[in-house]
């Protein structure tokens, strides 16, 4: 146990700047989104903005109902920048096994009596725990800002809805983290993993976006993890995300098992 704790502690220490940065930026972003929503509500701007924004852009933002106070408050959980920041954080932290091979650190730590599987367990755990922490901080910041800044009398997304939204976002980031772990179990270059999965992220996001606008692309939408994260409908209580969460969790589990198998067989 002491060995595993040391490995996790070292990994957290190495990623502390990234974890702190993600936590601060994404939590502050929640506060800013709520602040913006309050100002728009006070100036009665939502209807005017909705008239200016083309329907496909509204669709990309999560649907027309995002342009309401309640919708915008939840927007901080499905804003593309928030989603990609969280996913890249998960991808980077889960790619640590490849970084250790790249920098020769594996000669130092894997030459000791540490079971190989623990390197995968460690990185998966650190990626999952830190994204959970970041999302928990985002949720706390969102709730605090809403309680503090929301104009009285407006309908707001309830805590359980926001929790489901946060959970779905979290599991989406875990899926990318698990993909990174599987890639890192085989690769020798960390940048290659982050770059490739970053491009894959953009491609899959565009696939999902295109599928919403163009019928022939809908056949492939199920291949995109974003198909399993319907932010605004969850925030507005129009969708139960349980099935989507289970699909994303299942995908993450399969990718993690692949990571264990490949890492056990590889040359370090």
């Amino acid at each position, binding site marked *: 146990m002491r*060995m595993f704790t*040391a490995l996790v502690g070292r990994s957290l220490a190495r990623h502390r700047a990234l974890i702190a940065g993600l936590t601060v930026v994404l939590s502050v972003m929640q506060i800013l989104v709520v602040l913006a929503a309050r100002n728009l509500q006070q100036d009665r701007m939502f209807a005017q903005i909705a008239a200016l924004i083309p329907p496909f852009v509204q669709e990309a933002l999560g649907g027309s109902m995002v342009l309401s106070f309640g919708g915008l408050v939840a927007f901080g959980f499905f804003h593309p920048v928030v989603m990609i920041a969280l996913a890249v954080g998960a991808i980077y932290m889960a790619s640590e096994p490849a970084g250790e091979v790249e920098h020769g650190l594996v000669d130092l730590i*894997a*030459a000791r*009596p540490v079971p190989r599987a623990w390197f995968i367990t460690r990185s998966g755990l650190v990626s999952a725990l830190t994204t959970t922490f970041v999302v928990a901080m985002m949720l706390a910041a969102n709730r605090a800002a809403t309680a503090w800044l929301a104009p009285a009398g407006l309908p707001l997304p309830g805590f359980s809805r926001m929790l489901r939204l946060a959970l779905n976002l979290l599991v989406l980031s875990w899926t990318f983290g698990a993909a990174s772990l599987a890639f890192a179990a085989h690769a020798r270059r960390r940048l290659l993993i982050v770059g490739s999965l970053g491009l894959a992220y953009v491609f899959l996001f565009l696939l999902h976006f295109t599928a919403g606008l163009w019928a022939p692309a809908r056949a492939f939408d199920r291949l995109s993890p974003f198909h399993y994260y319907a932010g605004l409908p969850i925030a507005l209580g129009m969708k139960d995300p349980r099935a989507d969460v289970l699909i994303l969790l299942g995908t993450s589990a399969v990718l993690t098992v692949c990571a264990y198998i490949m890492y056990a067989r590889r040359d370090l």
Partner: protein
Amino acid sequence: MSAAILAESLTKYYGAVVGVEHLNLSVARGEVYGFLGPNGAGKTTTIRLLLDLVRPTRGRILVNGRDCRTSSRAVREQIGYLPSEMPLYPEMSGAAYLKFLGALQQRVDDGWLRRLLGRFDVSDVDLERRLGDLSHGMRRKFGILQALMGRAPILVLDEPTSGLDPLMIEAFAETVLELKAAGTTIFLSSHVLSEVERLCDRVGIIKRGTLARQTSIAELRAEMPRRVRVAFAGAAPAIPPSLRAGVKQAGTDYWKLEWQGALGPMLDALHGLQVADIEIDPFRLEEYVLDVYSREERAAR
């Protein structure tokens, strides 16, 4: 008693590239074994196979009778390892680095570590400095400390004295001799042949992935021809029959010989001649190793 390290037909290919091929070697318990070879010969691959960092294509390597592949963890529990390229966490202090690696090793002999810190002149201030700010030699000291601090029964040291100053090289040699006396098996890969000659009981020379030669330093001493220059007071006499095969050059007042084996018969043959001076070059492992390298080179052509 089984060997501490035993490689049996060990082969590792990296695609079409040969890492090691049909490597057979054995290291006895308590022995200091020098593992020599030019760059790219397969030394590091052998060490990484030993630590189960890479997997053999064929063959196997055993540590105290246990297969490094199937009993990987149990084998690694017995080994202290110093890699040739010293990987570091540059943001860590030396003390944190040793503590972290100690936690992964399970056992650290604190009293022994304190002695090593003193011997390698690592102060409390040095321990608190960031590893990224340390000189190459200082980082190497931390590498040696992390390898030795667990008092593992087998040490695998790859280029241990690279970057160390002469005082620290001496401290390292003293430590190796102390550990040897205590029964530790030491597998030492080095290009510093004087160090190998001084510390090792036996050497293995690897070339192009295969073991070109494995022998003891004592055997080498007996086997290697010694260069002898005999100067005479006046003109050189006729060469006695017993010395004819050895004399490579006969000058007006000197002979140059290459003499193999004990020196007694040669000195007996010189008895009664007007010898003014005798110079006998000391045994140098370097000459032998270079000879093996070049022989292999010629054979490859």
